[in-house]
């Protein structure tokens, strides 16, 4: 008798939670489909609008993906969420900003006597340098972040580095405000990647503008993602990173300097976040000390959505989140400013319904 009493309350809630989850998922799905169906019937939006929203979602999604890779790489190796990662992106964004600003201040006189800035006289050099500097100082920030805020806490309970990460995030934000001021700063693009100019693509009678800045960002983020994937899969450094992620002690027995690989992981994550920061500035035209906060949390959402610790998952999660939050408000017929609500609703739903994400394996005891 006593045993039976003991058993029941333990078993029942587990079953209930599963059923409730299923019902909740089903209800959410039905409501969403109904809503989208109704909106689509009434909608005045043409194909060109949907294309425009998808493309802009894909562009932003590429940046989320680059940042999300950083979350996932660090989680894969240290099982911690680097909450200061958004700030690393912010610092990268300022790196690119100052390069463009400096180049813009140098006047150049052409042969026919017209004066233009060095920025537009040598746009390729300017863009290259903006990304090199932006990625470089973001990588440095990542390196020192790990050295100062996380390495001394290696071996501490998992909550401790997490708190340190939040502290580092607040510190970097305020350091950014102190160094760069609280005001928004306008990103000056070279004309070849202007935000207002682009190709006109004719769709269903109207034309859709694909801006140079957007296409540039999309191509660059895709290139960087392929490069990272090859680095992780094909190179010795990539293999060492995977070995450290799978089993640190055995990795050390192979002659891998585990601390060095962890540092290099932070450097790579930082560089990718820095590139996203420069792209963010080029595409949106603005940067300030707070610019990394929202993309940082959204990219975290994307990493969780794809399955934290899984690199292709972070890429897919980032692109998916970018598109959904861009199309979502129009598809649901709600205000455009509610796109953040959509992104974070996804985070909550994923955490409730499938915490391991799209591509994530079931979380084991060791990793939780």
């Amino acid at each position, binding site marked *: 008798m006593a045993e039976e009493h003991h058993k029941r309350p333990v078993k029942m809630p587990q079953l209930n939670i599963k059923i409730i989850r299923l019902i909740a998922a089903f209800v959410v799905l039905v409501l969403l489909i109904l809503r989208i169906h109704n909106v689509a019937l009434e909608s005045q939006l043409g194909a060109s609008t949907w294309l425009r929203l998808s493309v802009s979602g894909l562009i932003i999604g590429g940046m989320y993906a680059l940042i999300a890779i950083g979350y996932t790489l660090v989680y894969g190796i240290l099982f911690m969420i680097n909450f200061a990662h958004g700030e690393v992106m912010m610092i990268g964004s300022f790196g690119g900003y100052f390069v463009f600003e400096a180049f813009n201040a140098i006047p150049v006189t052409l042969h026919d006597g017209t004066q233009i800035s060095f920025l537009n006289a040598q746009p390729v050099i300017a863009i290259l340098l903006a990304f090199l500097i932006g990625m470089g100082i973001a990588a440095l920030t990542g390196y020192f972040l790990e050295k100062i805020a996380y390495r001394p806490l290696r071996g501490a309970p998992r909550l401790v580095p997490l708190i340190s990460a939040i502290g580092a995030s607040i510190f970097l934000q305020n350091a950014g405000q102190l160094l760069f001021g609280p005001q928004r700063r306008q990103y000056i693009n070279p004309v070849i990647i202007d935000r207002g100019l682009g190709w006109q693509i004719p769709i269903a009678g109207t034309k859709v503008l694909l801006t140079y800045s957007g296409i540039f960002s999309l191509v660059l983020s895709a290139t960087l993602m392929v490069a990272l994937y090859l680095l992780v899969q094909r190179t010795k450094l990539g293999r060492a990173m995977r070995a450290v992620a799978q089993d640190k002690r055995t*990795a050390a027995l*192979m*002659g*891998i300097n585990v601390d060095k690989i962890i540092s290099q992981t932070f450097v790579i994550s930082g560089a990718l976040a820095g590139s996203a920061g420069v792209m963010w500035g080029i595409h949106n035209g603005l940067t300030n000390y707070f610019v990394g906060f929202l993309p940082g949390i959204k990219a975290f959402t994307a990493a969780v959505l794809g399955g934290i610790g899984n690199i292709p998952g972070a890429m897919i999660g980032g692109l998916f989140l970018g598109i959904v939050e861009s199309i979502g408000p129009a598809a649901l017929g709600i205000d455009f400013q509610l796109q953040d609500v959509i992104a974070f609703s996804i985070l909550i739903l994923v955490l409730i319904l499938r915490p391991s994400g799209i591509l994530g394996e079931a979380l084991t005891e060791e990793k939780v």
Partner: protein
Amino acid sequence: MMMLDVQGINVYYGAIHALKGISFHLNEGEIVALIGANGAGKSTSLSAISRVISTRSGAIFYKGESIINTPPQDIVTRRIIQVPEGRRIFPRMSVVENLEMGAYIHNDRGKIEKNMEAMFARFPRLRERRKQLGGTLSGGEQQMLAIARGLMAEPELLLLDEPSMGLAPIIVEQIFDIIQDINQHGTSILLVEQNAQMALSIANRGYVLETGRVVLEGSADDLLDNPHVQEAYLGGGG
């Protein structure tokens, strides 16, 4: 010539005193067995030599030089290679990638390829499964992969931790044949085993560990004849 000399090392896991001043040595070309029950400190001794756990006191000399302050990756570059307990294959890497991890300290592509070919010749099962993920191999295959991975570093001293654990007797025989063969090709071997009979049958000398201390040492034949060893580790009587 004395290759490895461990002198009175003490290791603590928190409040637990795991190694209580253990001393042993290994001469070049030897197979030395550390035998003892679970928790006697055998694996801890190997990890102390590999420097993946820290010692509180004592000294370790390799070829006459102290390695007590050498980080684990430099132990590997000095060709002291550990094949850890429970194989510790990288589960989400293929057989080939696991072997390449073993050769991490080497950069000569040609030599790595040559060594890998030698491993496939020695362990034909691994060649059949070269593209398969390490986590999907059977226990015996994983042990072979673990040893092959260790050999990829071209060890001068091989530290083998419980190579027979969880394997069928026929596979244990195979593994021990391979260990003898590796030794005959010039690699010194420090072998940790619970299977004392097997270990002492191929070893030159042995040490018996009990609760963090060396309680007996001697030639393998003497230990096999020792009544205490027979009673405690060889199933009694004899």
